[in-house]
C-alpha cells in the first residue's frame, strides 16, 4: 500500500515538475531576442552598432511641413508623437530602421509611413560614424496610448541577439501642441 502511494506521489511530483519546466522554459524567440539597453532621455546611449540620444517628445494633433513647394498637413484620429533625437553609426556605417513606440498597454507602433516627404526623418538615411544625425521619429498613436510609453530603438524591427535601446519617455521632456511645424523644429 505504502509502496503504491510513494509511487503515485513520485509520478505526481514528476508531472508537476515537468509541467513547471514546460511553462517556464523561455521560447526560442525569447532566448534569441533583443538584448535590452536601458537609458533615459537626454543621455547619449551606446548600443551595438549605433548611439542614440532623445532630447524631447512633442505630442501634436496635426503636423505640417513643406515639400516640393506645397504645404502638407496631416491629421490623425489619434495623436502625432514626434521624438526629436540624434543618432550616429558606431563604429561602422549603418542603417537603423527599428524604432518602435511601445505604449503602457504593450502595443507596439512603427513610425508612421504617412509622411514620406516630411523632412529629417531618422531611418531614411544611412548613419555614418562621426557624423551624428539630428532628426525625428514620428509615430501615430491613439490618444490613450500617449502616457508612460517606452521608445525602443534598434537597427531592425525584429532584432535578434542584438541591442535594443529601451527608453522610458519622461513627462518633463514632453511638450504638447495643436499644430506642429516640422520645418520649424530645426530652424536656428
Amino acid at each position, binding site marked *: 500500500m505504502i509502496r503504491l502511494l510513494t509511487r503515485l506521489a513520485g509520478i505526481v511530483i514528476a508531472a508537476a515538475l515537468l509541467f513547471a519546466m514546460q511553462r517556464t522554459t523561455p*521560447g526560442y524567440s525569447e532566448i534569441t531576442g533583443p538584448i535590452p539597453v536601458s537609458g533615459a532621455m537626454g543621455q547619449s546611449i551606446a548600443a551595438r552598432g549605433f548611439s542614440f540620444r532623445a532630447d524631447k517628445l512633442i505630442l501634436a494633433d496635426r503636423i505640417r511641413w513643406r515639400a516640393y513647394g506645397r504645404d502638407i498637413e496631416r491629421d490623425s484620429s489619434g495623436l502625432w508623437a514626434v521624438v526629436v533625437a540624434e543618432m550616429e553609426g558606431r563604429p561602422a556605417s549603418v542603417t537603423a530602421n527599428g524604432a518602435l513606440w511601445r505604449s503602457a498597454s504593450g502595443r507596439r507602433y*512603427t513610425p508612421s509611413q504617412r509622411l514620406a516627404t516630411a523632412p529629417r526623418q531618422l531611418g531614411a538615411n544611412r548613419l555614418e560614424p562621426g557624423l551624428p544625425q539630428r532628426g525625428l521619429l514620428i509615430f501615430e498613436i*491613439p490618444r490613450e496610448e500617449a502616457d508612460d510609453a517606452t521608445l525602443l530603438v534598434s537597427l531592425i524591427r525584429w532584432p535578434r541577439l542584438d541591442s535594443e535601446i529601451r527608453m522610458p519617455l519622461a513627462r518633463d521632456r514632453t511638450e504638447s501642441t495643436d499644430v506642429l511645424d516640422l520645418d520649424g523644429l530645426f530652424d536656428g
Partner: protein
Amino acid sequence: MLGFSLTALRQTLFTRLSAGIGGLLALCLTTVQTIIAAMPPDALPKLRPGETIDAGRWQVAVQSAVVSTQPRDDGYRPPPGMKALAVDIDILNRTAESSNVFGRIFTIDPPIPGLKPDPIHYLMRDRTMLAALHPGLPERVRVIWTMPNQAPIPPNLRLTITAESFKPRDNLLAAPGWFNPKVIAAISLPLHEEWGGGGGAP
C-alpha cells in the same frame, strides 16, 4: 502451474488492450475529422453593409462597392482600358502591432471574370496608398481591384471575409502570431456604376 499461466494471460491481455485502446482512439479521432471535413460547410453568417465584424487581426465594416472608369476624387486613375472596382471599408487593427497584411481579408466569391487579383488599398484620410495600420486607430480605406473595360459586371458583389486566430506561442519559435486563416462571414453588395461609368460593354 495453472495460476502462473492465468497471470501471464492476464498480463498479455492487459498490454494488448492498452496498446489497442490508444490505436482505437486515434482511429476514432481521424474518422471524426474526416467526416467533419467531408460535411458541407456551415452557412456563413451574412453581414449587412456597414455592419462591424471582428475578423482576427482586423475589425472591419464593409460600406459600399462601386465600379468606375473615370479618375476619381481620391486621385486614383485606372490604367488605360481598365475599370476599377472599389470597395469602401472601415478598418481597425485589433492586434498589438502595426501591420500591413490587410491584403488577405477579402475574397471575391464567386469570382468576377477578368478581375485582377491583389487589390490596391487607399487611405481615404490622405488620398494616398495605405502603408500600414496601427493598433487602435480606425481608418476609412478604399480597396480597389482592376478589370478590363469590356468585362461584364454582375449586379451583385459577394465578398467573403477571412480571419486568422491568435496563438500566444507558435509551434516553431514559440513566438506569438496569427495563424489558421478561416472564412468567417460573407457580405453581398449591390454594384453601382458611377462617375459616368458608361465604359462597360454595350
